[in-house]
Protein backbone atom coordinates (compact mmCIF):
# COMPACT_ATOMS: atom_id res chain seq x y z
CA UNK A 1 0.00 0.00 0.00
CA UNK A 2 0.97 3.57 -0.57
CA UNK A 3 1.84 5.64 2.43
CA UNK A 4 -0.74 7.97 3.92
CA UNK A 5 -0.78 11.55 2.69
CA UNK A 6 -2.58 14.72 3.67
CA UNK A 7 -5.35 16.20 1.50
CA UNK A 8 -3.36 19.29 0.60
CA UNK A 9 -0.43 17.23 -0.53
CA UNK A 10 -2.73 14.92 -2.44
CA UNK A 11 -4.13 17.83 -4.45
CA UNK A 12 -0.61 19.03 -5.11
CA UNK A 13 0.64 15.69 -6.37
CA UNK A 14 -2.53 15.18 -8.40
CA UNK A 15 -2.01 18.48 -10.20
CA UNK A 16 1.66 17.68 -10.73
CA UNK A 17 0.92 14.17 -12.01
CA UNK A 18 -1.66 15.51 -14.43
CA UNK A 19 0.73 18.16 -15.62
CA UNK A 20 3.34 15.50 -16.37
CA UNK A 21 0.65 13.43 -18.05
CA UNK A 22 -0.21 16.40 -20.25
CA UNK A 23 3.44 16.93 -21.18
CA UNK A 24 3.74 13.28 -22.16
CA UNK A 25 0.47 13.37 -24.02
CA UNK A 26 1.20 16.67 -25.75
CA UNK A 27 2.98 15.28 -28.83
CA UNK A 28 0.07 12.91 -29.49
CA UNK A 29 -2.47 15.68 -28.91
CA UNK A 30 -0.55 18.04 -31.16
CA UNK A 31 -0.46 15.47 -33.93
CA UNK A 32 -4.18 14.96 -33.52
CA UNK A 33 -4.92 18.70 -33.76
CA UNK A 34 -2.58 19.22 -36.69
CA UNK A 35 -4.22 16.46 -38.66
CA UNK A 36 -7.32 18.68 -38.89
CA UNK A 37 -5.48 21.81 -40.00
CA UNK A 38 -4.62 22.99 -43.47
CA UNK A 39 -0.93 22.71 -44.43
CA UNK A 40 -0.57 26.46 -43.98
CA UNK A 41 -2.05 26.49 -40.50
CA UNK A 42 0.05 23.47 -39.55
CA UNK A 43 3.27 25.47 -39.97
CA UNK A 44 1.90 28.84 -38.89
CA UNK A 45 3.92 30.81 -36.35
CA UNK A 46 2.81 31.29 -33.63
CA UNK A 47 1.09 27.91 -33.62
CA UNK A 48 -2.67 27.80 -33.20
CA UNK A 49 -4.18 25.32 -30.76
CA UNK A 50 -7.87 24.94 -31.44
CA UNK A 51 -8.87 28.24 -33.04
CA UNK A 52 -8.48 27.07 -36.61
CA UNK A 53 -10.94 25.93 -39.25
CA UNK A 54 -11.22 22.22 -38.66
CA UNK A 55 -11.01 20.33 -41.91
CA UNK A 56 -11.08 16.70 -42.98
CA UNK A 57 -9.16 17.57 -46.13
CA UNK A 58 -5.98 15.75 -45.05
CA UNK A 59 -7.77 12.51 -44.38
CA UNK A 60 -9.54 12.79 -47.71
CA UNK A 61 -6.30 13.46 -49.57
CA UNK A 62 -4.54 10.55 -47.93
CA UNK A 63 -7.30 8.18 -48.83
CA UNK A 64 -7.47 9.27 -52.46
CA UNK A 65 -3.78 9.90 -53.19
CA UNK A 66 -1.73 7.46 -51.22
CA UNK A 67 -3.84 4.34 -51.32
CA UNK A 68 -4.03 4.35 -47.54
CA UNK A 69 -6.38 1.41 -47.29
CA UNK A 70 -3.95 -0.84 -49.11
CA UNK A 71 -1.38 -0.30 -46.32
CA UNK A 72 -4.05 -0.53 -43.66
CA UNK A 73 -5.25 -3.86 -45.06
CA UNK A 74 -1.67 -5.15 -45.06
CA UNK A 75 -1.19 -4.11 -41.44
CA UNK A 76 -4.33 -5.94 -40.38
CA UNK A 77 -3.48 -8.96 -42.49
CA UNK A 78 0.10 -9.19 -41.19
CA UNK A 79 -0.63 -8.63 -37.53
CA UNK A 80 -3.58 -11.01 -37.39
CA UNK A 81 -1.90 -13.59 -39.60
CA UNK A 82 1.32 -13.72 -37.64
CA UNK A 83 -0.58 -13.80 -34.34
CA UNK A 84 -2.76 -16.69 -35.48
CA UNK A 85 0.24 -18.63 -36.73
CA UNK A 86 2.07 -17.84 -33.49
CA UNK A 87 -0.75 -19.14 -31.32
CA UNK A 88 -0.74 -22.47 -33.15
CA UNK A 89 2.86 -23.01 -32.10
CA UNK A 90 2.93 -21.14 -28.80
CA UNK A 91 -0.14 -22.55 -27.08
CA UNK A 92 1.05 -26.19 -27.10
CA UNK A 93 4.58 -25.11 -26.18
CA UNK A 94 3.49 -22.90 -23.28
CA UNK A 95 1.04 -25.56 -22.16
CA UNK A 96 3.75 -28.20 -22.06
CA UNK A 97 6.14 -25.88 -20.21
CA UNK A 98 3.56 -24.81 -17.64
CA UNK A 99 2.04 -28.20 -16.83
CA UNK A 100 4.83 -30.67 -17.51
CA UNK A 101 7.87 -28.66 -16.52
CA UNK A 102 11.19 -30.42 -16.68
CA UNK A 103 14.38 -29.39 -14.96
CA UNK A 104 15.36 -27.28 -17.90
CA UNK A 105 12.05 -25.54 -18.64
CA UNK A 106 13.09 -22.29 -16.96
CA UNK A 107 16.42 -22.24 -18.80
CA UNK A 108 14.69 -22.87 -22.10
CA UNK A 109 12.30 -20.00 -21.49
CA UNK A 110 15.13 -17.67 -20.58
CA UNK A 111 17.20 -18.70 -23.54
CA UNK A 112 14.24 -18.09 -25.81
CA UNK A 113 13.52 -14.70 -24.33
CA UNK A 114 17.18 -13.75 -24.61
CA UNK A 115 17.01 -14.25 -28.40
CA UNK A 116 14.60 -11.32 -28.34
CA UNK A 117 17.43 -9.12 -27.10
CA UNK A 118 19.80 -10.02 -29.89
CA UNK A 119 19.94 -7.47 -32.70
CA UNK A 120 17.66 -8.33 -35.61
CA UNK A 121 20.32 -7.28 -38.11
CA UNK A 122 22.26 -10.32 -36.97
CA UNK A 123 19.87 -12.54 -38.89
CA UNK A 124 18.62 -10.08 -41.48
CA UNK A 125 21.09 -11.04 -44.19
CA UNK A 126 20.36 -14.79 -44.25
CA UNK A 127 16.65 -14.12 -44.14
CA UNK A 128 16.96 -11.56 -46.90
CA UNK A 129 18.89 -14.06 -49.03
CA UNK A 130 16.30 -16.75 -48.36
CA UNK A 131 13.56 -14.34 -49.34
CA UNK A 132 15.35 -13.55 -52.59
CA UNK A 133 15.83 -17.22 -53.36
CA UNK A 134 12.23 -18.17 -52.70
CA UNK A 135 10.72 -15.04 -54.23
CA UNK A 136 9.23 -13.97 -50.91
CA UNK A 137 10.41 -10.36 -51.00
CA UNK A 138 7.49 -7.97 -50.72
CA UNK A 139 5.06 -10.84 -50.13
CA UNK A 140 2.64 -10.91 -47.26
CA UNK A 141 3.24 -14.61 -46.67
CA UNK A 142 6.96 -14.10 -46.15
CA UNK A 143 6.43 -11.25 -43.71
CA UNK A 144 3.86 -13.19 -41.74
CA UNK A 145 6.41 -15.94 -41.24
CA UNK A 146 9.10 -13.48 -40.13
CA UNK A 147 6.79 -11.59 -37.76
CA UNK A 148 5.65 -14.92 -36.37
CA UNK A 149 9.25 -15.96 -35.73
CA UNK A 150 10.37 -12.77 -34.03
CA UNK A 151 7.36 -12.65 -31.73
CA UNK A 152 7.21 -16.34 -30.90
CA UNK A 153 9.38 -16.09 -27.75
CA UNK A 154 7.13 -13.36 -26.36
CA UNK A 155 3.99 -15.32 -27.16
CA UNK A 156 5.33 -18.40 -25.38
CA UNK A 157 6.55 -16.39 -22.41
CA UNK A 158 3.26 -14.50 -21.99
CA UNK A 159 1.11 -17.60 -22.33
CA UNK A 160 3.41 -19.42 -19.93
CA UNK A 161 2.93 -16.76 -17.22
CA UNK A 162 -0.84 -17.03 -17.64
CA UNK A 163 -0.95 -20.83 -17.78
CA UNK A 164 1.18 -20.98 -14.63
CA UNK A 165 -1.68 -19.34 -12.74
CA UNK A 166 -4.14 -22.06 -13.69
CA UNK A 167 -4.20 -24.58 -10.85
CA UNK A 168 -2.80 -27.91 -12.01
CA UNK A 169 -5.15 -29.77 -9.66
CA UNK A 170 -8.10 -29.00 -11.90
CA UNK A 171 -6.36 -30.64 -14.83
CA UNK A 172 -5.46 -33.62 -12.69
CA UNK A 173 -9.06 -33.94 -11.57
CA UNK A 174 -10.17 -33.91 -15.19
CA UNK A 175 -7.61 -36.58 -15.96
CA UNK A 176 -8.84 -38.72 -13.05
CA UNK A 177 -12.34 -38.49 -14.47
CA UNK A 178 -10.98 -39.97 -17.66
CA UNK A 179 -10.86 -36.90 -19.85
CA UNK A 180 -8.74 -37.38 -22.96
CA UNK A 181 -5.92 -35.00 -23.79
CA UNK A 182 -7.99 -33.16 -26.38
CA UNK A 183 -10.93 -32.90 -23.98
CA UNK A 184 -8.62 -31.68 -21.27
CA UNK A 185 -7.41 -28.90 -23.53
CA UNK A 186 -10.68 -27.84 -25.15
CA UNK A 187 -13.05 -28.15 -22.20
CA UNK A 188 -10.96 -27.53 -19.12
CA UNK A 189 -7.90 -25.55 -20.06
CA UNK A 190 -9.28 -23.34 -22.81
CA UNK A 191 -12.07 -21.62 -20.85
CA UNK A 192 -9.62 -20.71 -18.09
CA UNK A 193 -6.94 -19.67 -20.51
CA UNK A 194 -9.06 -17.38 -22.69
CA UNK A 195 -8.39 -14.13 -20.77
CA UNK A 196 -4.66 -14.79 -20.88
CA UNK A 197 -4.76 -15.65 -24.56
CA UNK A 198 -6.79 -12.51 -25.24
CA UNK A 199 -4.22 -10.16 -23.74
CA UNK A 200 -1.38 -12.10 -25.36
CA UNK A 201 -3.12 -11.61 -28.69
CA UNK A 202 -3.53 -7.90 -27.96
CA UNK A 203 0.17 -7.53 -27.19
CA UNK A 204 1.23 -9.50 -30.23
CA UNK A 205 -1.03 -7.54 -32.56
CA UNK A 206 0.42 -4.28 -31.20
CA UNK A 207 3.98 -5.54 -31.61
CA UNK A 208 3.35 -6.72 -35.17
CA UNK A 209 1.48 -3.54 -35.97
CA UNK A 210 4.46 -1.46 -34.84
CA UNK A 211 7.15 -3.67 -36.32
CA UNK A 212 9.17 -1.51 -38.66
CA UNK A 213 12.58 -3.09 -39.02
CA UNK A 214 11.47 -6.14 -40.96
CA UNK A 215 8.60 -4.53 -42.79
CA UNK A 216 10.78 -1.67 -44.03
CA UNK A 217 13.56 -3.96 -45.16
CA UNK A 218 11.57 -6.76 -46.73
CA UNK A 219 8.80 -4.88 -48.52
CA UNK A 220 8.55 -2.21 -51.18
CA UNK A 221 4.88 -1.70 -51.96
CA UNK A 222 2.81 -4.82 -52.44
CA UNK A 223 3.03 -6.12 -48.87
CA UNK A 224 4.01 -2.86 -47.17
CA UNK A 225 2.05 -2.08 -43.99
CA UNK A 226 1.36 1.25 -42.30
CA UNK A 227 4.83 1.58 -40.78
CA UNK A 228 6.32 1.67 -44.27
CA UNK A 229 3.60 4.06 -45.36
CA UNK A 230 4.43 6.49 -42.55
CA UNK A 231 8.16 6.16 -43.04
CA UNK A 232 7.69 7.22 -46.66
CA UNK A 233 6.56 10.62 -45.35
CA UNK A 234 9.71 11.10 -43.35
CA UNK A 235 11.87 12.87 -45.92
CA UNK A 236 13.63 15.83 -44.27
CA UNK A 237 12.40 18.27 -46.91
CA UNK A 238 8.84 17.00 -46.67
CA UNK A 239 6.68 19.86 -45.55
CA UNK A 240 3.37 18.08 -45.56
CA UNK A 241 3.00 18.06 -41.82
CA UNK A 242 -0.78 18.14 -41.74
CA UNK A 243 -0.98 15.11 -43.99
CA UNK A 244 1.76 13.37 -42.09
CA UNK A 245 -0.16 13.97 -38.86
CA UNK A 246 -3.32 12.59 -40.37
CA UNK A 247 -1.42 9.52 -41.56
CA UNK A 248 0.17 9.04 -38.14
CA UNK A 249 -3.19 9.38 -36.44
CA UNK A 250 -4.68 6.78 -38.74
CA UNK A 251 -1.81 4.45 -37.93
CA UNK A 252 -1.96 4.80 -34.15
CA UNK A 253 -5.69 5.35 -33.70
CA UNK A 254 -6.54 1.63 -33.64
CA UNK A 255 -3.99 1.06 -30.89
CA UNK A 256 -5.09 4.10 -28.86
CA UNK A 257 -8.75 3.10 -29.07
CA UNK A 258 -8.33 -0.61 -28.43
CA UNK A 259 -5.85 0.20 -25.67
CA UNK A 260 -8.31 2.51 -23.97
CA UNK A 261 -10.98 -0.16 -23.74
CA UNK A 262 -8.62 -2.86 -22.58
CA UNK A 263 -6.38 -0.90 -20.24
CA UNK A 264 -5.77 -3.80 -17.89
CA UNK A 265 -4.74 -6.16 -20.68
CA UNK A 266 -2.65 -3.42 -22.27
CA UNK A 267 -0.67 -2.81 -19.10
CA UNK A 268 -0.17 -6.49 -18.45
CA UNK A 269 0.72 -7.18 -22.05
CA UNK A 270 3.19 -4.33 -22.48
CA UNK A 271 4.94 -5.26 -19.25
CA UNK A 272 5.24 -8.89 -20.41
CA UNK A 273 2.96 -10.09 -17.68
CA UNK A 274 5.02 -8.56 -14.88
CA UNK A 275 2.13 -6.31 -13.79
CA UNK A 276 -0.88 -8.37 -12.86
Amino acid at each position, binding site marked *: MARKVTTGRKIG*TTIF*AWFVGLVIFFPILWTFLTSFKTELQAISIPPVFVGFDWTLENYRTIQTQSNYFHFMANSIYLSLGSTALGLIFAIPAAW*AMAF*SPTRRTKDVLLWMLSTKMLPAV*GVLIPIY*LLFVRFGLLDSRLGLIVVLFLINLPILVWMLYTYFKEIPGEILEAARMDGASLSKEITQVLAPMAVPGIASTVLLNVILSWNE*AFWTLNLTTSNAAPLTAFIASFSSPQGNF*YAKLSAASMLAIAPILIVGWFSQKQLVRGLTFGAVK
Partner: protein
Amino acid sequence: MAAQRKRLNTATLVLLPFWAVVLAAYVGTMLWTVQISFTASKLLPVDEYVGFAQYERLFGSTRWSVSMQNAVIFGVLFIGGALVLGFLLAVVLDQRVRFENTLRTVFLYPYAMSFIVTGLIWQWLMNPGLGIQKAVRDWGFTSFDFAWAVDRDMAIYALVLAGLWQASGLVMALMLAGLRGVDEEIWKASRIDGIPAWRVYLFVIVPMLRPLIVTAVVLLAISVVKAFDLVVALTNGGPGISSDMPAKFVMDNLFTRQNIGLATAAATVMLITVAAVLVPWIYTEYFRKARVGGTA
Protein backbone atom coordinates in the same frame (compact mmCIF):
# COMPACT_ATOMS: atom_id res chain seq x y z
CA MET B 1 4.61 -44.07 -13.18
CA ALA B 2 3.81 -45.24 -16.68
CA ALA B 3 1.15 -42.54 -16.95
CA GLN B 4 3.68 -40.00 -15.78
CA ARG B 5 6.12 -41.09 -18.47
CA LYS B 6 3.41 -40.92 -21.13
CA ARG B 7 2.56 -37.35 -20.05
CA LEU B 8 6.14 -36.33 -20.30
CA ASN B 9 6.39 -37.80 -23.78
CA THR B 10 3.30 -35.96 -24.93
CA ALA B 11 4.78 -32.76 -23.56
CA THR B 12 8.03 -33.37 -25.39
CA LEU B 13 6.11 -34.21 -28.53
CA VAL B 14 4.12 -30.96 -28.45
CA LEU B 15 7.34 -29.06 -28.04
CA LEU B 16 8.97 -30.66 -31.07
CA PRO B 17 7.61 -28.41 -33.85
CA PHE B 18 8.40 -25.46 -31.65
CA TRP B 19 11.99 -26.61 -31.20
CA ALA B 20 12.41 -27.30 -34.89
CA VAL B 21 11.29 -23.77 -35.73
CA VAL B 22 13.38 -22.13 -33.05
CA LEU B 23 16.58 -23.98 -33.89
CA ALA B 24 16.30 -23.56 -37.65
CA ALA B 25 15.19 -19.94 -37.54
CA TYR B 26 17.33 -18.52 -34.76
CA VAL B 27 20.45 -20.58 -34.48
CA GLY B 28 20.61 -21.48 -38.17
CA THR B 29 20.39 -17.91 -39.42
CA MET B 30 22.90 -16.64 -36.87
CA LEU B 31 25.45 -19.25 -37.88
CA TRP B 32 24.87 -18.39 -41.52
CA THR B 33 25.57 -14.74 -40.76
CA VAL B 34 28.85 -15.68 -39.13
CA GLN B 35 29.78 -17.88 -42.09
CA ILE B 36 29.20 -15.12 -44.66
CA SER B 37 31.28 -12.70 -42.61
CA PHE B 38 34.39 -14.76 -43.36
CA THR B 39 33.90 -14.57 -47.13
CA ALA B 40 34.60 -11.89 -49.73
CA SER B 41 30.88 -11.53 -50.54
CA LYS B 42 29.84 -8.35 -52.27
CA LEU B 43 26.40 -8.22 -53.88
CA LEU B 44 25.68 -11.92 -53.36
CA PRO B 45 27.26 -14.39 -50.95
CA VAL B 46 30.23 -16.27 -52.40
CA ASP B 47 32.31 -19.09 -50.98
CA GLU B 48 35.66 -17.35 -51.26
CA TYR B 49 36.99 -17.32 -47.70
CA VAL B 50 39.12 -14.38 -46.67
CA GLY B 51 39.57 -15.03 -42.97
CA PHE B 52 39.26 -11.96 -40.81
CA ALA B 53 39.72 -9.45 -43.65
CA GLN B 54 36.17 -8.09 -43.34
CA TYR B 55 36.68 -7.60 -39.61
CA GLU B 56 39.91 -5.70 -40.22
CA ARG B 57 38.08 -3.41 -42.61
CA LEU B 58 35.26 -3.02 -40.12
CA PHE B 59 37.44 -1.96 -37.23
CA GLY B 60 39.38 0.37 -39.49
CA SER B 61 36.21 2.25 -40.37
CA THR B 62 35.49 5.55 -38.61
CA ARG B 63 31.82 5.21 -39.31
CA TRP B 64 31.70 1.93 -37.43
CA SER B 65 33.46 3.33 -34.34
CA VAL B 66 31.11 6.33 -34.32
CA SER B 67 28.16 3.93 -34.56
CA MET B 68 29.40 1.81 -31.67
CA GLN B 69 30.03 4.90 -29.52
CA ASN B 70 26.54 6.16 -30.26
CA ALA B 71 25.03 2.80 -29.37
CA VAL B 72 26.78 2.91 -25.99
CA ILE B 73 25.74 6.53 -25.31
CA PHE B 74 22.17 5.80 -26.33
CA GLY B 75 21.99 2.55 -24.38
CA VAL B 76 23.38 3.96 -21.13
CA LEU B 77 21.44 7.24 -21.13
CA PHE B 78 18.23 5.64 -22.36
CA ILE B 79 18.16 2.77 -19.87
CA GLY B 80 19.41 4.87 -16.96
CA GLY B 81 17.14 7.80 -17.75
CA ALA B 82 14.04 5.70 -18.26
CA LEU B 83 14.65 3.89 -14.95
CA VAL B 84 15.03 7.13 -12.97
CA LEU B 85 12.16 8.97 -14.68
CA GLY B 86 9.88 5.96 -14.54
CA PHE B 87 10.56 5.42 -10.86
CA LEU B 88 9.94 9.09 -10.00
CA LEU B 89 6.68 9.06 -11.96
CA ALA B 90 5.61 5.92 -10.11
CA VAL B 91 6.38 7.53 -6.75
CA VAL B 92 4.22 10.52 -7.70
CA LEU B 93 1.41 8.34 -8.96
CA ASP B 94 1.58 6.25 -5.81
CA GLN B 95 0.44 9.21 -3.68
CA ARG B 96 -3.19 8.31 -4.32
CA VAL B 97 -3.60 10.58 -7.29
CA ARG B 98 -7.13 11.00 -8.70
CA PHE B 99 -8.05 9.11 -11.90
CA GLU B 100 -4.88 7.13 -11.56
CA ASN B 101 -5.88 4.41 -14.03
CA THR B 102 -6.54 6.92 -16.78
CA LEU B 103 -3.24 8.61 -16.11
CA ARG B 104 -1.42 5.29 -16.15
CA THR B 105 -2.83 4.56 -19.60
CA VAL B 106 -1.82 8.03 -20.83
CA PHE B 107 1.74 7.43 -19.61
CA LEU B 108 1.80 4.09 -21.39
CA TYR B 109 0.40 5.32 -24.70
CA PRO B 110 3.76 6.36 -26.18
CA TYR B 111 5.07 2.85 -25.59
CA ALA B 112 2.15 1.41 -27.53
CA MET B 113 3.18 3.52 -30.51
CA SER B 114 5.85 2.47 -32.95
CA PHE B 115 9.32 3.99 -32.90
CA ILE B 116 8.57 5.19 -36.43
CA VAL B 117 5.69 7.40 -35.33
CA THR B 118 7.66 8.49 -32.25
CA GLY B 119 10.58 9.49 -34.43
CA LEU B 120 8.44 11.45 -36.86
CA ILE B 121 6.60 13.36 -34.16
CA TRP B 122 9.85 14.32 -32.46
CA GLN B 123 11.52 15.22 -35.71
CA TRP B 124 8.79 17.73 -36.07
CA LEU B 125 8.89 19.02 -32.50
CA MET B 126 12.65 19.57 -32.89
CA ASN B 127 12.39 21.18 -36.31
CA PRO B 128 14.13 24.56 -35.98
CA GLY B 129 11.64 26.35 -38.22
CA LEU B 130 8.38 24.98 -36.82
CA GLY B 131 8.84 23.16 -33.58
CA ILE B 132 9.26 23.95 -29.92
CA GLN B 133 12.43 25.99 -30.51
CA LYS B 134 10.58 28.42 -32.78
CA ALA B 135 7.60 28.71 -30.45
CA VAL B 136 9.72 29.35 -27.35
CA ARG B 137 11.93 31.87 -29.17
CA ASP B 138 8.84 33.73 -30.33
CA TRP B 139 7.75 34.00 -26.70
CA GLY B 140 10.94 35.93 -26.01
CA PHE B 141 13.55 33.32 -25.07
CA THR B 142 15.74 33.94 -28.12
CA SER B 143 18.69 31.83 -27.02
CA PHE B 144 16.57 28.72 -26.52
CA ASP B 145 18.01 25.85 -28.54
CA PHE B 146 16.00 22.72 -29.19
CA ALA B 147 16.87 21.87 -32.79
CA TRP B 148 18.73 18.81 -31.57
CA ALA B 149 17.88 16.52 -34.46
CA VAL B 150 19.78 18.66 -36.96
CA ASP B 151 22.66 19.51 -34.62
CA ARG B 152 25.78 17.40 -35.10
CA ASP B 153 26.61 17.36 -31.40
CA MET B 154 23.08 16.91 -30.11
CA ALA B 155 21.52 14.49 -32.59
CA ILE B 156 22.27 11.42 -30.48
CA TYR B 157 20.63 13.12 -27.47
CA ALA B 158 17.60 13.84 -29.61
CA LEU B 159 17.30 10.09 -30.03
CA VAL B 160 17.68 9.58 -26.28
CA LEU B 161 14.99 12.15 -25.54
CA ALA B 162 12.49 10.64 -27.95
CA GLY B 163 13.29 7.19 -26.57
CA LEU B 164 12.75 8.39 -22.99
CA TRP B 165 9.42 9.87 -23.95
CA GLN B 166 8.44 6.55 -25.43
CA ALA B 167 9.59 4.20 -22.68
CA SER B 168 9.38 6.02 -19.33
CA GLY B 169 5.70 5.19 -18.98
CA LEU B 170 6.47 1.51 -19.24
CA VAL B 171 8.96 1.67 -16.36
CA MET B 172 6.43 3.71 -14.41
CA ALA B 173 3.76 1.02 -14.81
CA LEU B 174 6.18 -1.66 -13.62
CA MET B 175 7.43 0.33 -10.64
CA LEU B 176 3.95 1.41 -9.63
CA ALA B 177 2.91 -2.22 -9.41
CA GLY B 178 5.93 -2.81 -7.20
CA LEU B 179 5.21 0.17 -4.94
CA ARG B 180 1.66 -1.11 -4.47
CA GLY B 181 3.12 -4.31 -3.09
CA VAL B 182 5.15 -2.52 -0.42
CA ASP B 183 3.96 -3.30 3.09
CA GLU B 184 2.24 -0.45 4.94
CA GLU B 185 4.22 -1.46 8.04
CA ILE B 186 7.43 -0.23 6.45
CA TRP B 187 6.01 3.29 6.22
CA LYS B 188 4.71 3.13 9.78
CA ALA B 189 8.05 1.95 11.10
CA SER B 190 9.98 4.61 9.21
CA ARG B 191 7.60 7.31 10.48
CA ILE B 192 8.16 6.19 14.04
CA ASP B 193 11.90 6.19 13.52
CA GLY B 194 11.70 9.61 11.86
CA ILE B 195 13.45 8.55 8.67
CA PRO B 196 12.81 10.95 5.77
CA ALA B 197 10.71 9.51 2.93
CA TRP B 198 13.42 9.86 0.27
CA ARG B 199 15.79 7.73 2.32
CA VAL B 200 13.16 5.04 2.73
CA TYR B 201 12.61 5.03 -1.03
CA LEU B 202 16.30 4.89 -1.80
CA PHE B 203 17.51 2.37 0.77
CA VAL B 204 14.46 0.22 1.49
CA ILE B 205 12.02 0.36 -1.41
CA VAL B 206 14.43 0.31 -4.35
CA PRO B 207 16.23 -2.86 -3.16
CA MET B 208 12.83 -4.47 -2.66
CA LEU B 209 11.87 -3.69 -6.25
CA ARG B 210 14.95 -5.37 -7.66
CA PRO B 211 13.10 -8.10 -9.63
CA LEU B 212 10.92 -5.47 -11.31
CA ILE B 213 13.95 -3.33 -12.07
CA VAL B 214 15.52 -6.35 -13.77
CA THR B 215 12.38 -6.86 -15.86
CA ALA B 216 12.41 -3.16 -16.78
CA VAL B 217 16.06 -3.29 -17.83
CA VAL B 218 15.38 -6.35 -19.99
CA LEU B 219 12.47 -4.61 -21.73
CA LEU B 220 14.48 -1.40 -22.20
CA ALA B 221 17.41 -3.36 -23.58
CA ILE B 222 15.09 -4.87 -26.18
CA SER B 223 14.15 -1.31 -27.17
CA VAL B 224 17.81 -0.31 -27.46
CA VAL B 225 18.42 -3.18 -29.83
CA LYS B 226 15.38 -2.12 -31.82
CA ALA B 227 16.44 1.54 -31.94
CA PHE B 228 17.06 1.23 -35.68
CA ASP B 229 13.47 2.35 -36.39
CA LEU B 230 13.88 5.45 -34.27
CA VAL B 231 17.14 6.43 -35.95
CA VAL B 232 15.63 6.00 -39.39
CA ALA B 233 12.58 8.12 -38.59
CA LEU B 234 14.19 10.84 -36.49
CA THR B 235 17.67 11.61 -37.80
CA ASN B 236 18.45 8.96 -40.41
CA GLY B 237 21.88 8.74 -38.87
CA GLY B 238 22.69 12.35 -39.55
CA PRO B 239 23.71 15.06 -39.69
CA GLY B 240 26.56 13.32 -41.51
CA ILE B 241 27.22 10.17 -39.51
CA SER B 242 26.86 11.86 -36.12
CA SER B 243 23.88 9.79 -34.93
CA ASP B 244 24.65 6.59 -36.79
CA MET B 245 23.90 3.30 -35.07
CA PRO B 246 25.38 -0.17 -35.74
CA ALA B 247 22.10 -1.49 -37.16
CA LYS B 248 22.01 1.34 -39.66
CA PHE B 249 25.61 0.66 -40.64
CA VAL B 250 24.66 -2.92 -41.46
CA MET B 251 21.62 -1.86 -43.46
CA ASP B 252 23.53 0.65 -45.55
CA ASN B 253 26.26 -1.82 -46.39
CA LEU B 254 23.71 -4.44 -47.27
CA PHE B 255 21.28 -2.45 -49.38
CA THR B 256 23.00 0.63 -50.76
CA ARG B 257 26.68 -0.34 -50.82
CA GLN B 258 26.28 -3.97 -51.81
CA ASN B 259 28.81 -5.15 -49.30
CA ILE B 260 27.36 -8.24 -47.70
CA GLY B 261 30.67 -9.43 -46.28
CA LEU B 262 31.26 -6.25 -44.31
CA ALA B 263 27.60 -6.06 -43.28
CA THR B 264 27.66 -9.59 -41.86
CA ALA B 265 30.93 -8.93 -40.07
CA ALA B 266 29.32 -5.91 -38.41
CA ALA B 267 26.23 -7.94 -37.59
CA THR B 268 28.37 -10.68 -36.08
CA VAL B 269 30.20 -8.17 -33.89
CA MET B 270 26.82 -6.83 -32.74
CA LEU B 271 25.54 -10.30 -31.94
CA ILE B 272 28.65 -11.18 -29.97
CA THR B 273 28.71 -7.85 -28.09
CA VAL B 274 25.09 -8.08 -27.03
CA ALA B 275 25.39 -11.73 -26.10
CA ALA B 276 28.59 -11.13 -24.14
CA VAL B 277 27.09 -8.28 -22.13
CA LEU B 278 23.52 -9.37 -21.59
CA VAL B 279 23.32 -13.12 -21.42
CA PRO B 280 25.57 -13.71 -18.39
CA TRP B 281 23.89 -10.85 -16.62
CA ILE B 282 20.36 -12.17 -17.17
CA TYR B 283 21.37 -15.65 -16.13
CA THR B 284 22.97 -14.56 -12.88
CA GLU B 285 19.97 -12.34 -12.13
CA TYR B 286 17.50 -15.14 -12.62
CA PHE B 287 19.57 -17.78 -10.89
CA ARG B 288 20.04 -15.49 -7.93
CA LYS B 289 16.30 -15.09 -7.79
CA ALA B 290 15.73 -18.81 -8.07
CA ARG B 291 18.02 -19.34 -5.07
CA VAL B 292 16.25 -16.85 -2.81
CA GLY B 293 12.92 -18.22 -3.99
CA GLY B 294 11.38 -15.01 -5.31
CA THR B 295 9.00 -14.71 -8.23
CA ALA B 296 8.79 -12.21 -11.04
